[in-house]
């Protein structure tokens, strides 16, 4: 038990991100309803974001905002900044971009879903397939 706990703590995030991704991917492939697929898509994307944020985490470090300079004086940053005190900001930046991209895709996909519904009056894939083969 004493050996197991550190291992779980060390890798738990990475394992769970894999599980979340699997849930999202499964929903995207297997679900019948297009909106459900979109939910799956979003879960898939957030799982990736979770992965990146987990990379950035550092033990015993604080959020990446330099405290001594708060208020922005000219001489405020004379105090030395230790890299070990702050969490890695780069993955956060990347993920801000990824979140924006995912919401943009989500919006467009929703608009498409509305269009599909206008045309076929359904969002279930099997019913859509039936409508398509009717013609």
């Amino acid at each position, binding site marked *: 038990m004493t050996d197991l706990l550190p291992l779980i703590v060390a890798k*738990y995030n990475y394992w769970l991100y894999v599980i*979340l991704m699997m849930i999202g991917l499964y929903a995207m492939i297997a679900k019948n309803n297009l909106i*459900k697929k979109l939910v799956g898509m*979003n*879960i898939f994307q*957030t799982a990736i974001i979770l992965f990146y944020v987990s990379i950035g985490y550092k033990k015993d470090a604080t*959020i*990446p905002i330099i405290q001594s300079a708060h208020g922005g004086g000219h001489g405020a940053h004379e105090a030395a900044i230790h890299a070990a005190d702050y969490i890695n900001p780069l993955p956060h930046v990347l*993920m801000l971009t990824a979140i924006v991209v995912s*919401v943009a895709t989500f919006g467009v996909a929703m608009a498409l879903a509305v269009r599909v519904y206008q045309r076929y009056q359904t969002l279930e894939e099997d019913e859509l397939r039936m409508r398509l083969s009717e013609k």
Partner: protein
Amino acid sequence: MHWPIDLIVLTFVIFCAIAAISVKDLLGTAILFGAYSFMMCLLWAVMGAVDVAFTEASVGAGVSTVFFVAAVFRTSRRTKD
């Protein structure tokens, strides 16, 4: 010592994700999805990614859910799976 919070919230996130894709009412899915996003946001705040958490709170739990509800309003609530 953040890891206990991290573990608990992560487990909740998984529950929310599974619930969101298995509920048979799309409006319910919308709400569960919002809850999922909010849990994620909490998790990232715990991990120190404040900017990402802020964005997720406003985007994932906020605007995305609104788009979702709007789309459900214009399509249908019912679903077979």
